[in-house]
């Protein structure tokens, strides 16, 4: 695609995203995203899932702008919580939280919040430029891919999401196959064969993605809270003025840029997850820091240790839209649900999206620029407002989440049966949470499973019934080798 063309399309996108109604959707999305990011027990995936019923009423462009706002708004809000709240047990697991939380403890909460919000803005904006420039190119390339290549790409996504990213390969794979099994329920897309409905008419159309997402996250979270977190005592760090000194800026700017360039590539490849890039950025900052600054790591809290990982996080999350929009491959919980939202409109993200739904895609991309500016305003001067959300008492918070869960699940299909199923999925999520099974493979498997199955069948048809087709085409063979490598290499490295 010509560069002038991209520019023209983007301007067109701004024209669509800039209408008062769409601006309002973006703003409400960003505000809601920040809120769910701040609130413990509810994340962007849950929030978007609960609101999926609006896809039956609201026009596609508006609701995708809205969902995207929630998606990256939650990234801004999430850091506020990890900096200010001392949740025992949880802070140590998140790299981003470590330094920010330490800074807050030594009275520098304001600077930590500022570097995190501005860093998110810088990284989000740069990554959006990358999306603008590269998504059309990838789409143009992806048009040439056939079913064998697509199937291999999906296999790659399954592998990375389940076997590579998590702590345990077996638990990751178990989660993936549970998701694939959930995706099997209902009528088969190609032959119309009914599978695993057990004669229950409600299951003919399959299991709703809303139900599984809300059950695994929101309901399981509430159940976990009532069972195990009753006596957990949280404390809140004191706020200080949200500003940065000249020295803070000097230390933050390079860290933001490094974080962005570490994070951005990770979103582009169908490997998902923000854990690896944020950790890499943290390690890089710790290594590069000198003298007194380095001594602050792990003690008083070093500002680079907040700035870098926060930027890496936002860059990854933003560029993850490239595989989602151009290949239709989700690599995280939230992008899986965004894919579900597209499907509700009968739109299948993929290379054709840029030609068939150009208005929608470019409005969505333009809204990312607009949303990042909105979020900077929402999170810098108004951070005090969001901090108040941390004071919502837990019983009311989780009980309230259950009400919203009901709206999402019942609103989708108007079936009380789904609410019983929701309870069952909640129990499954509780067990998974207690025994450290990852949840992303379930959702990715459930959404991508039926698509992968269709691609597999088409591919084998092309090969006239032979699976050799996957080895005969250079591109699909290459991806297959990549899959093998990422399965084997980490093991070999660990052995040494």
């Amino acid at each position, binding site marked *: 695609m010509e560069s002038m063309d991209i520019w023209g399309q983007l301007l067109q996108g701004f024209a669509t995203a800039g209408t008062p109604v769409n601006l309002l959707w973006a703003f409400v999305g960003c505000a809601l995203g920040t809120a769910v990011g701040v609130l413990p027990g509810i994340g962007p995936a849950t929030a978007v899932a609960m609101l999926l*019923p*609006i896809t*039956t009423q*609201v026009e596609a462009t508006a609701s995708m702008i809205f969902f995207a706002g929630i998606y990256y708004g939650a990234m801004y809000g999430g850091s506020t919580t990890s900096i200010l709240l001392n949740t*025992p*047990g949880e802070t140590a*697991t998140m790299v981003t939280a470590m330094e920010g939380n330490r800074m807050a403890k030594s009275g520098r909460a304001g600077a930590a919040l500022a570097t995190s919000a501005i860093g998110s803005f810088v990284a989000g904006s740069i990554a959006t430029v990358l999306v603008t420039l590269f998504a059309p190119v990838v789409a143009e390339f992806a048009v040439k891919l056939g079913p064998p290549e697509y199937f291999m790409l999906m296999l790659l996504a399954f592998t990375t999401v389940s076997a590579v990213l998590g*702590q*345990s390969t*077996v*638990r990751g*794979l*178990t989660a993936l*196959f549970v998701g*694939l*099994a959930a995706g*099997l329920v209902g009528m088969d897309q190609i*032959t119309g*064969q009914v*599978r*695993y409905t057990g004669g229950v008419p409600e299951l003919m159309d399959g299991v709703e993605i809303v139900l599984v997402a809300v059950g695994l996250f929101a*309901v399981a979270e*509430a*159940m976990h*809270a*009532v*069972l*195990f*977190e*009753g*006596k*957990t005592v949280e404390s809140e760090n004191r706020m200080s003025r949200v500003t940065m000194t000249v020295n803070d800026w000097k230390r933050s700017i390079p860290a933001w840029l490094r974080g962005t360039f570490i994070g951005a590539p990770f979103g582009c490849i169908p490997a998902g997850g923000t854990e690896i890039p944020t950790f890499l950025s943290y390690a890089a900052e710790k290594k590069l820091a000198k003298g007194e600054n380095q001594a602050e790591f792990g003690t008083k809290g070093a500002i680079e240790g907040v700035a870098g990982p926060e930027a890496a996080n936002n860059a990854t999350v933003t560029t993850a839209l490239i595989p989602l929009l151009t290949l239709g491959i989700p690599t995280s919980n939230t992008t899986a649900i965004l894919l579900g939202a597209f499907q509700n409109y009968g739109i299948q993200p993929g290379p054709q999206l840029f030609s068939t739904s150009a208005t929608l895609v470019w409005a969505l991309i333009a809204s990312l620029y607009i949303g990042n500016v909105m979020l900077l305003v929402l999170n810098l001067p108004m951070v005090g407002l969001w901090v108040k959300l941390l004071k919502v008492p*837990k*019983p*009311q918070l*989780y*009980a*309230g989440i*259950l*009400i919203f869960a*009901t*709206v999402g699940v*019942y*609103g989708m299909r*108007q079936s*009380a049966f789904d*609410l019983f199923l*929701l*309870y069952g999925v909640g129990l499954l999520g509780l*067990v998974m949470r207690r*025994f*450290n099974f990852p949840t992303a493979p379930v959702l990715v498997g459930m959404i991508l499973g039926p698509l992968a*199955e269709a691609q*597999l*069948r*088409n591919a*084998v048809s092309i090969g*006239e*019934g032979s*699976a050799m087709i996957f080895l005969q085409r250079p591109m699909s063979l290459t991806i297959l080798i990549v899959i093998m490598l990422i399965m084997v290499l980490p093991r070999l490295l660990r052995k040494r």
Partner: protein
Amino acid sequence: MRPHAPAQHSPYLQALVGVGVLLLALGLGFGAWFIPSNAGYAGVGPNFLPWLVSIALGVCGLFLIRKARRGGFLHMEEHDGEHPYWAGFAWMSAGMLLNAALITRIGFVFSCALCFLLAARGLRNAQATASAGVKSWLMDIVVALLIAAPVYWMFTKFLGINLPGLTESGWL
């Protein structure tokens, strides 16, 4: 109450999870038996993925059991040693199941308010800081209605989403 040692990861429970996965795999395999294989030109019929999933899950289940028996799962998040509080869980479960059973009869607002009330009770008891008595119940009822009713109006009136009401008025 008898003092307990702090709760720890139990290999016994982990093995049980593995057995659960294995049972699921067997169930799926049993179901796959009845799915016809009419593959046609595709070579891959509608029963291919079901078989693949059940076999893979079976293998995962066996691995989980083996890991549990050999000293337990690795890389587990640390627990804070808290024993599960089943009474609170029962309150929450009652709230959710009653909600599912009653939503079409008493309408969204009251059904959800009831769910909120029971779940919040369980969570309050779990914290054991609840100022027991009528006051906290009343407070929860008020909060429940203050959330459920506006949510109902917002979703049905503004977003046009169909949620069940108690009356035909559309407000309750």
